[in-house]
């Protein structure tokens, strides 16, 4: 292949973090009021910038948005198509419900393999619901890919991808040969919004729905059955008891220190 890129971007339909979120009686997340995960928009933007620079879809590039989950998960794909993804893939099967990071990454890896050769897999830095940050690394391990995570910028030249990342006290440049997996932070770019043209164009784009069997997995490998971790209980943190609130009358700094001293914090 020449200078074209085939990129898979992971997108996820997650509860809106602007509101309080809840865990239901089945110890899974209440997914009403869900949106395309904010952090995935940076991943999608990164993919679109790379392909735009190479002539976009017309130049032979592809940005495939991939999600897994129930019927509602398709909403994340629709949004991704409106923003500019070339096509969508929805891995959907009832057996997937309750998958932990292990089972999720196994299923996503199988779905990506079913798409043929891919140059790049791009993800957000974490989902804003599970927040484990495990899936990108586990996906990379399942697919045997180098991972370049927490990129604050990335570029592809020839068959090499290079990123910048901020570590504790250090900024690193990291390189790998394609194919590779990259996760981007919210510093990587300014995500674009879908415009009218994009919304119209999205109606003509395809969303392929894949079953577990179509990606070569059976029900026992995913969901609660295939997971390697189990949540035994989930409870809201006890609400923090309302503390003492004072209005500054010129001595609040001293009262604050009194409080710290009483709590043995100084």
């Amino acid at each position, binding site marked *: 292949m020449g200078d074209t890129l085939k990129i898979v971007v992971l997108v996820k339909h997650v509860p809106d*973090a*602007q509101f*309080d*979120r809840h*865990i239901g009686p089945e110890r899974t997340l209440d997914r009403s009021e869900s949106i395309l995960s904010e952090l995935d928009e940076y991943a999608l933007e990164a993919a679109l910038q790379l392909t735009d620079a190479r002539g976009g879809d017309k130049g032979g590039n592809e940005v495939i948005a991939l999600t897994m989950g129930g019927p509602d998960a398709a909403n994340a794909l629709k949004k991704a198509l409106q923003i500019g993804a070339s096509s969508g893939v929805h891995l959907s099967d009832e057996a997937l419900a309750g998958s*932990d*990071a292990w089972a999720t990454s196994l299923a996503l890896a199988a779905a990506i393999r079913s798409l043929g050769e891919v140059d790049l897999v791009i993800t957000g830095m974490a989902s*804003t*619901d*599970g*927040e*484990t*940050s*495990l899936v*990108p*690394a*586990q996906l*990379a*391990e*399942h697919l045997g890919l*180098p*991972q370049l*995570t*927490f990129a604050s910028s990335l570029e592809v030249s020839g068959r090499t991808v290079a990123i910048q990342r901020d*570590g*504790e*006290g*250090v900024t*690193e*440049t*990291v390189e*790998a040969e394609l194919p*590779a997996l990259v996760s981007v*932070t919210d510093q990587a770019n300014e995500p674009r919004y879908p415009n009218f043209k994009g919304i119209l164009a999205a109606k003509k784009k395809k969303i392929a729905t894949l079953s577990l069997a179509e990606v070569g997995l059976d029900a026992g490998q995913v969901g609660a059955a295939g997971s*390697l*971790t189990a*949540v*035994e*209980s*989930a*409870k809201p*943190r006890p609400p*923090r*008891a*309302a*503390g*003492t*609130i004072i*209005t*500054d009358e*010129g001595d*609040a*700094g*001293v*009262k*604050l*220190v009194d*409080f710290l001293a009483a709590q043995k*914090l*100084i």
Partner: protein
Amino acid sequence: MTEANVLVVLDGVGESLKKSQLELLSAGRLLGTVSVAATAPVGEAVLAQLRENGAAAAYVPDGADLSEYLVGPTAAWLAEVVSASEAQGRPVRAVLLDNSPTGRETAARLGVRLGAGVITDVVGLEPDGTAHKSVLAGSYEDRARATSPVSILTLKANLDLGSPAAPAPGSAAVTPVAVPADALTRSARVTGRAAKVSSGRPDLTEARVVVAGGRGTDGDFGPVEELADALGGAVGASRAAADAGWVSHDLQVGQTGKTVSPQLYISAGISGAVQQKAGMQTAKVIVAVNSDPESPVFEIADFGVVGDLFEVLPQATAEIKRRRG
């Protein structure tokens, strides 16, 4: 778990062990007999410290400098260490790592290699391996377990271990374990490193005290930094403050930044919208200073001051210094 063998992974070991690394060792002792996998060679002083803290073995990488690569080769090497430990009659039942991004990703890849369940964001641990895990940005707490024969846990700093037993000294000797060559071929390589200017303050993620500033600072973090220094704490910031360019994004606490669990979190000029509260929920004590009495942050503050942070913080800083004489 009855005296399981626990592998504690120590990354970035310097001249001596950090508090967070000693905490990982304590956590390991809670679960069983501790061996250590250090991702770089360790000096005599550290080896002595490991023995004092009960380590029965210390594995180091042989044949490659893991710090030149991101995550993949370290995970591959750790899988070799687990095999080596088993060959020496110490089958590993749990692997403990720190909860940094690197720790979590190493855990993730090792989990795939070992077929082991991974639990991140662990804030408390029971002797039978049950983990207490903070989820939804600290608004929920789960009790979770790995159902696989080996469990991998990444532990947050300042975690709750109940009252751990004092260590019986171990007799760890250094055992080099080869880094598998094929793990290096398809890996991401670090080609450049630039050190940032050091603040001299403790790391945000492991600090006992965090003083965080938000929009209300109007870009002047002076009072926040001075109070942090008086308390020996780290400086944090809301996303708004980081996005405004007032401080580096490294200092960002919250939904898309770092979650911290210090003993004391002082929030100054941060309104406390849901995503901002996220970063501070697991702090033991929260103090808030904000000029707006309607700020949601006051709903979760143990002690709140409705006032001007430019008045309150310097007065508190001066008072702390005065009391210390």
